[in-house]
């Protein structure tokens, strides 16, 4: 009897300690998520009360050809982010992890990581704007008619992906280096004794053993690129027209510029679902492969 009472009182105090965290999560994370989902079924300009309109916002969203332009740009960001910062990060890690003093080669790549996305946008728009630093440098070497970096699509999205890679390569290289350093020495040495070098060593030993970490790095990159906002807002504001807009910018514009909170929320819900589905599918697939090793 006494034990049972003790156990109950222990449970109650445990609940008490957990409650602040649970309430904070509920208030700060679940409540906004539910509110946004609710708003996506309403027409609401931020004033008065939302009017229920069912699926009208989703209908309007999918009927707008510009929405698919944004979706296309967002997918370009996903692909570009996987190829450039993740690819270069892996390359940098592979080339330097075994080198003496390799850290000094990796370190400079980490410095841009300390800058905010908007800061990166400002720096690169100074470089890439018409007649900006890059155009002036090109003029010095005789290029008189350089590409219009930020005015022509899809070139503007491509150069923005490169600008964002400037920031992202270092941290990916750091993560891959940690992964490479955690690979046990024995199988590596055994493979080398068997004559595996270069691509063969990478393909047969390093890559499979890096997979748990690659899964995390790629998973994080997918999520980060799906919500790309700050660098585009800082460099082109989605323009000219809507040529470089991403879904996150469309969501922001509809919500805070047009005060169409319902449509903005519908895009937010869509983006959340896409991000969740992409992450879950990807991680599931990776985890199951990992189990096979």
């Amino acid at each position, binding site marked *: 009897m006494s034990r049972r009472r*003790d156990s109950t*009182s*222990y449970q*109650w*105090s*445990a*609940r*008490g*300690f957990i*409650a*602040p965290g649970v*309430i*904070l999560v509920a*208030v700060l994370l679940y409540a906004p998520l539910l509110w946004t989902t609710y708003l996506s079924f309403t027409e609401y*300009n*931020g*004033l*008065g009360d939302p009017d229920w309109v069912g699926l009208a916002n989703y209908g309007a969203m999918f009927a707008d050809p510009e929405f698919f332009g944004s979706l296309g740009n967002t997918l370009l960001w996903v692909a570009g982010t996987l190829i450039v910062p993740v690819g270069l990060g892996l390359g940098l890690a592979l080339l330097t992890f075994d080198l003496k003093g390799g850290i000094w080669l990796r370190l400079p790549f980490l410095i841009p990581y300390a800058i905010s996305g908007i800061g990166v946008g400002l720096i690169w*728009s*100074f470089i890439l*704007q*018409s*007649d900006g630093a890059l155009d002036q440098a090109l003029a010095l070497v005789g290029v008189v008619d350089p590409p*219009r*970096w*930020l*005015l*022509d699509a899809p070139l503007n999205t491509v150069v923005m992906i490169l600008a964002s890679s400037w920031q992202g390569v270092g941290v990916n290289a750091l993560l891959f280096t940690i992964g490479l350093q955690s690979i046990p020495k024995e199988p590596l040495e055994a493979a080398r004794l068997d004559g595996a070098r270069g691509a063969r060593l990478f393909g047969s030993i390093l890559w499979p053993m890096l997979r748990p970490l690659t899964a995390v790095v790629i998973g994080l990159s997918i999520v980060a690129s799906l919500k790309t906002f700050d660098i585009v807002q800082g460099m*082109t*504001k*989605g*323009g*000219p*027209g*809507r*040529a470089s807009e991403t879904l996150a910018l469309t969501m*922001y*514009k509809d*919500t*805070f*510029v*047009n*005060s*169409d909170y319902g449509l903005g929320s519908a895009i937010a819900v869509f983006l959340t679902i896409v991000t969740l589905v992409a992450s879950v599918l990807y991680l599931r697939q990776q985890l199951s492969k990992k189990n096979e090793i």
Partner: protein
Amino acid sequence: MKSTTRRVGLLATVSVAALALTACSGGGGGASDGATTGTLNFYTDKAAWEPDFDTLSETSSSDVDIELNTTGYSDANQYDAFIRQSFRTNKSPGLFSWHTGSSLKELVDENLVAETTDIWDKAIADGYVSEDLKKYYTIDGKQYCVPMNIAYWIMYYNKTIFDENGLEKPTTWDELMQDAATLKANGVTPFYQTSVLFTFPWFQQLVAGTDPELYNGLSTGEVKYTDPRVVDIMNVWLDQQNKGWFSDAGSTTDPAVMLKQGDMAMINFGSFFGASLDAAGMTQGTDYDFFVIPAVNSDVDPNAVAVETGPLCTAENSPQRDLGMAFAEWWMSPDAQSAWSEARGDVPFNPKATVANEALSELGTSVATDDQLVERYFEATPTPILTVALEQFGAFNANPGDPLPFLQKIQDAADAYWADQGADQK
């Protein structure tokens, strides 16, 4: 020990729950506390003007015992969202800056702003404000808010460049076109343009200067953007684009700096732009000057000048409602407007105010007597149409070409907006 642990756990639960409840409460808002003197909390998206409002506060403190506590937002969209959400709380502002046009109507439709009809009636009777300005503050026959500022959209030019090229202020459209051609021939880009935000002024100028009725029809939905007359006007613009008369749309350099360093000779901007040029180190009359842009079509008489006016409003449910209204009433007075003109160097709307800037004073007088006013495109156009129009003009500036596809996209947004308005009224 156990009981202490339990108590701490319970305390934590209660305090967090209380915190959460506090955060959730506050809907609706209370009535005004009735005070008409004291410290008035003022919110504005003109963060750069905060020092000017602080200067003004000294005059309002001594005149009517109201001190302004100004909070300036530098991001207009963030500010907009903040004001909208504030009406749901008991902290809605006693004074805040806003926009005329559809943005003001939205607030009035929800009974969120205090009516100022009495203040307007008295100010007009006293000759403190022109009848002309009233229409921008009138919704369903009643007035709301008071004018914070008034700006005319005119042409600023680099005087040194004009002098070097032997040019004078143009008095007709043909002269302006000739000046542009001369400048271009001499290797100077005539006009400024951008691909972001301020993409509308040249469209506004060309349409209002060609046919003010057509311009007004666009804002009421009676005229379509794809109307052949609008297409013709866009083709005039395209022709000028093809002649290379506009600065690079991709430049993100401050336009005041661009005018100073001669990236272009002229820029069509609001009469508040002089302050930016002064800040860039230029002197009015020596380094730069301005002129009212002549009508494109000489039959447009009087000439159409775009006017921009931003309101100062009081939230109906603000605890500082009475204080805000007392300030609004004082704001209309010559004393307040003289102090504001001194602080900000802007055109005051009150003809009885003393104007610090002689040239702006003359501009105000000449526009009032010689020209007709049209509402600036930014306020005249309902927001959902405006957003698309600003994007499309930006795209046109970046990649000039057949105007119809650009106009069609704006018209699509206009069709959707007016259909929605029609549905709401039924």
